[in-house]
């Protein structure tokens, strides 16, 4: 297990290094941030001073070397636009996004798995067919449109829920959270649901497919031949087998929910990381972009690791192989 962890850690470092290099070169190729950051009226002197201050006078490879040197020490540079450390900017926004992503994941699991199981258990029933039709909508409706519709219906027409911002927040260990206040939860429902919709459809389909596949297996018939109740067969025998692919996919999806909550955050004016990255790209704020991507990649790596560990908890066959390696 330790060997496994160490190897994963080393792989992660390589991935982070390659990532940062690609992003660095990529952003350099897009354009010169100076043109955006400095007003056209500034004279040549001011312009050169700014360029030197930001370290943009050095050749690209030297800029990268400087970045790398500092990055090893945990300093990912200062934002060109805000002049604050890029990492700090991201970390400040992170709780909002994490909170939203986790709430969305929670919703898609809590609703998706039971619906998927029912649709797989009774595929011919009206409810089963309705669930599948609904999941197609979840897949195919664009997030921004659903978001706008949610605002139209629940915020504008019915006036039940607020449509923008995080609402009242509570500080826990220096992290501001919305989920602990009534107002915060009310603010979170619409964006979380909007973000959850696609994942929910995915969970429904995965669960249903797993259910249908597993119900035909001999072990189900054998379990029934032992005289077990249908409930025990479904919720212990089948469910544990279904959970293996569902956990794997959900783990990967959690990363993408966090990284690409951009659309939802923009529509609901949710002050998270997604909003920040869009603004940074518009301003070619390279330190923030690089830092954001490094953070995101790290997050993916951690989630994958957790998924692998969870996977071995669920599937004994994987567990043994890992022990040996």
């Amino acid at each position: 297990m330790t060997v496994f962890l160490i190897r994963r850690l080393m792989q992660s470092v390589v991935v982070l290094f390659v990532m940062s290099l690609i992003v660095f070169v990529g952003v350099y190729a897009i354009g010169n941030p100076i043109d955006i950051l400095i007003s056209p009226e500034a004279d040549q002197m001011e312009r050169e001073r700014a360029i030197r201050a930001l370290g943009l006078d050095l050749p690209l490879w030297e800029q990268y070397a400087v970045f790398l040197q500092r990055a090893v020490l945990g300093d990912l540079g200062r934002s060109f636009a805000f002049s604050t450390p890029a990492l700090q900017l991201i970390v400040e926004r992170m709780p909002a996004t994490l909170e939203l992503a986790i709430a969305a994941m929670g919703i898609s699991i809590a609703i998706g798995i039971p619906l998927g199981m029912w649709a797989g258990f009774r595929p011919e029933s009206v409810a089963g067919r309705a669930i599948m039709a609904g999941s197609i909508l979840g897949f195919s409706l664009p997030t921004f449109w659903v978001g706008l519709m949610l605002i139209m219906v629940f915020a504008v027409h019915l006036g039940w829920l607020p449509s923008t911002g995080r609402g009242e927040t509570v500080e826990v260990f220096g992290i501001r959270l919305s989920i602990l206040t009534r107002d915060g939860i009310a603010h979170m429902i619409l964006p979380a649901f909007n973000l959850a919709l696609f994942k929910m459809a995915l969970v429904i389909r995965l669960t249903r497919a797993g259910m249908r596949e597993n119900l035909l297996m001999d072990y189900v018939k054998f379990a029934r031949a032992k005289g077990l109740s249908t409930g025990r067969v479904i919720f212990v025998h089948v469910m544990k087998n279904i959970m293996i692919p569902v956990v794997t996919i959900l783990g990967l999806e959690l990363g993408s929910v966090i990284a690409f909550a951009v659309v939802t955050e923009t529509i609901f004016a949710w002050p998270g990381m997604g909003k920040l990255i869009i603004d940074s790209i518009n301003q070619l704020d390279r330190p923030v972009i690089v830092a954001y991507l490094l953070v995101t990649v790290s997050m993916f790596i951690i989630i994958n690791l957790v998924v692998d560990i969870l996977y071995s908890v669920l599937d004994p066959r994987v567990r043994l192989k890992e022990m040996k390696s």
Partner: protein
Amino acid sequence: MTGSATLVVENLQTHFHTRAGVLKAVDGVSFAVDKGRILGLVGESGSGKSVTGFSLLGLVDPPGRIAGGRILFKGEDLATASEERLRALRGDRIAMIFQDPMMTLNPVLRIDTQMIEALQAHRKMDHRTAFARARDALGQVGIPSPEERLRSYPHQFSGGMRQRVAIAIALLNEPDLIIADEPTTALDVTIQGQILFEAQKLCREVGTALIWITHDLSVVAGLADDICVMYAGRVVESGPVDEVLETPLHPYTRGLIGSVPSRNRRGRPLAQIPGMAPSPLNLPRGCSFRTRCPRADAACLEPPPMVELVPGRFARCVHPHLETVAA
């Protein structure tokens, strides 16, 4: 066939309602098996022998269902019993062993979980007692260091060991009847021998009635007391196993025995039954073996009844091989 036997099946019919029509997988099967006795249910693939086994437990998957007949288990008709009643009997009074031991155990649950739940499904039993009972059952089927093995997962066992575990699970509640659906087909010959030996021993010692479904005549020859030969959803011949295998009355049984390679002389072409088993959706009129039978004539166009030709021996044939018995 006495009415007091552990299991009496009378005219069982299991039909599958498919788009192509009604498929009569089991069409009027009757047999009986008493405690301490072993019945061999023999037939080719698709003869309806496995469906018969599943019908007894009410485990036929849709679109299949029992369309008629009676399944009298200790006097109680299972064909009309409620699902709840069947669930209570399954694994408790009637146990089943499946064909492929690699597939029957749940890969993600430990052996002890899978054994203990089989006990607790039928009676209130604390975990420790159940664990001890499971351990004893594993020891009974010849698994070394059962206490350790209980904490293993199925993939840590070989095929033969898994089948022993499945048999141990079947034995847990000391059932009155065990239905074994080709349990040794997926195993190699030496393991098969051991399993057969243990099945026979347990059956004799505990007095369990056993139905052994197989396509392998050599297994039945060494194991069973009685035999039922099935063809196209019907029993075509039944009787004591030695007599039936020695002097088969039905041409199909004769052909089946002739097809066993070891009975053919070396160097000669292997004997076989001409043609293929007919599709159950499109059976020949009259005797369903008619199209492949060397003795068939116009009389076979009428469906033959099951007749007691020799005391204790039944066959469904107009032209049975009575000459061998008389001689």
